[in-house]
């Protein structure tokens, strides 16, 4: 009963369009106030202690690191590196677009920013070369989402906060699926380009390749700083994030020289704005999951689902459906923070590995960003390509379809995500 009231209230508040964090908070307040005798004072304390954890502080640091490198100059370097490597194959610039998106998304950490940064540079070039506009738009919309799977990923940090799973292990587990998805998207582009005989670039010489590599390596080393630091145990994940922020500051100021000193306050302010928004959602989500646990909701859900005879296979199918649906109306951070604490206990009861479950959720968020009617990437891409959502939907379908197949693969083949962390002895 109380479950129905809580969720009914939450959904009712959410569809009025108020900020998700506010609807979470108001749900908790009104439920506690009217239905229980939990002292409402404890809410104030929870609002503070909710984010008083050093692990959570990785989020502002990662955002700062990403914002320093989210710059057109970095995007251009990634594109020239990618096109010198794969530009002479079928698909030319399109294939380079997939690779550049994967690289840029990994360091910038933001999908919409990737779509704009890579898209704004590569799409006009593609149209000039004679690619149809849909081809480029489809590639950029879907490949832009790669960033939340390739570490460092804020979505994974959110999952680890919500479920107490190790961030380092999650990051490692994301590597193989992330690369595989990039390859799958590239293959679709390659296949379609070959079929329709789209233009290719002249093959780059090894000197050109080396020059492009040397230019882009500084940005890419960020991934190495984070992953290497965490894996070798030199840094905790939060420290690694802080080091990444300092590293990307040094790279953009002294190596790439994309920014001048007077731009720094603006970058800091933007990052602070973004991270404060996420931290505010976290605070309220912590409040919400506190209400959930005090009402025993996750346990009840688990028992109910198991009593219905739902095995792991059916459960994962339901989870995928639910997340894809939610992915259309909310942004990844809120979904993970609301859904993970509820679904996680059921998953562990059914014997699903926490790390595998985390990767599955992340891939779901990725697909959710680019599938119609209202994926965020679709909207952003529609802005830069000046194409309508319907048109774009038609343009993305080959890639979207392959992403959904890939999602099935990740869902029912745990070894794909668990192999690398197991090999490295992280779990």
């Amino acid at each position, binding site marked *: 009963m109380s479950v129905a009231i809580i969720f009914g209230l939450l959904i009712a508040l959410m569809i*009025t369009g108020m900020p998700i964090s506010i609807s979470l908070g108001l749900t908790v307040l009104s439920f506690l106030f009217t239905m229980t005798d939990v002292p409402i004072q404890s809410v104030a304390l929870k609002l*503070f202690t909710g984010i*008083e954890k050093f692990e959570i502080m990785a989020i*502002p*640091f990662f955002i700062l690191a990403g914002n320093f490198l989210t710059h057109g100059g970095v995007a251009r370097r990634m594109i020239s590196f990618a096109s010198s490597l794969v530009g002479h194959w079928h698909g030319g610039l399109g294939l380079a677009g997939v690779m550049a998106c994967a690289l840029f998304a990994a360091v910038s950490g933001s999908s919409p920013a990737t779509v*704009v940064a890579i898209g704004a540079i590569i799409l006009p070039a593609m149209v000039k070369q004679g690619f149809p506009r849909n081809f480029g738009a489809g590639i950029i919309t879907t490949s832009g989402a790669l960033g939340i799977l390739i570490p460092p990923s804020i979505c994974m940090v959110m999952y680890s906060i919500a479920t107490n799973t190790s961030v380092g292990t999650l990051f490692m587990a994301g590597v193989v699926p992330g690369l595989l998805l990039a390859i799958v998207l590239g293959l679709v582009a390659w296949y379609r380009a070959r079929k329709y*005989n789209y233009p290719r670039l002249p093959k780059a010489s090894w000197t050109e390749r080396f020059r492009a590599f040397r230019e882009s390596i500084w940005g890419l080393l960020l991934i190495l700083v984070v992953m290497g630091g965490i894996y070798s145990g030199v840094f905790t994940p939060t420290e690694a994030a802080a080091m990444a922020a300092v590293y990307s500051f040094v790279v953009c100021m002294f190596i790439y020289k994309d920014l001048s000193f007077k731009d720094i306050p603006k970058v800091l302010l933007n990052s602070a*704005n973004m991270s*404060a928004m996420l931290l505010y959602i976290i605070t309220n989500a912590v409040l919400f999951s506190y209400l959930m646990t005090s009402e025993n909701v996750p346990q009840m859900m688990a028992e109910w689902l198991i009593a219905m005879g739902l095995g792991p296979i059916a459960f994962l199918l339901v989870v995928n459906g639910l997340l894809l649906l939610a992915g259309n109306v909310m942004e990844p951070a809120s979904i993970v923070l609301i859904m993970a604490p509820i679904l996680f206990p059921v998953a562990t009861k059914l014997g699903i590995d926490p790390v595998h479950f985390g990767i599955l959720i992340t891939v779901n968020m990725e697909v959710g960003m680019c599938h119609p*009617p209202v994926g965020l990437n679709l909207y952003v891409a529609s802005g830069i390509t000046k194409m309508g959502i319907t048109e774009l939907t038609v343009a993305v379908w080959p890639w979207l379809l392959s992403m959904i197949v890939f999602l099935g693969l990740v869902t029912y083949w745990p070894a794909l995500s668990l192999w690398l962390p197991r090999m490295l002895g992280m779990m």
Partner: protein
Amino acid sequence: MILTLLDRLEEWLITFLIGAATLIIFVAVVHRFGCSVPVPAIQDLLIPINMSWAQELCIYMFVWMAKFGAAYGVRTGIHVGVDVLINRLPGKTRNKFIIFGLLAGALFTGIVGTLGSNFVWHIAHTEQVSAELEIPIWMVYLAIPCGSYLMCFRFLQVTWSFICTGQLPHHDHSHVDGIEEETIPPDVNWLEMDDNLHPHDLKHKKLGNGSKEGGGK
């Protein structure tokens, strides 16, 4: 005048907090490395310095940044909700929902601010101090009432300007610096697109056929 000052103060505060917190953690990590360098001179210099407070200070700075940044976020329109449904409504009904949402935000932050100030008031009468820095804990927790009341004020401000001008602050999640405005040439002929997604006549020359392999431009 006072409002502009408040705006600037808010911006400076959160900018300073995120920057300083990053530096502090960086220094703490470097210090830890320095201590393990097997050079006696460096070790003698560094080991007496106690950096154990860095984590705690970083957390408190970020909590303050989060509370005031959330208030700043209301002003920049970064707090988003599920607006798919209300965007389909006719203008007037939609406006009512938007105002309702903004006022709900003001209500929530107002309640939290009041709860928080109550809480801070009680804790200020105890001798509680933080674990490492040993500063009175109520000073740390002061972020809740201050931040929440400021946020409440911001929500009311945005509501007021929405009623007056009909405009909401809007945050662009996809803004990237350093990109020249290059737009896609508008003269692409849809009928020439050869991806079987657009109608084209059978005799039409296909785009890909014209260009030789590797012939880019």
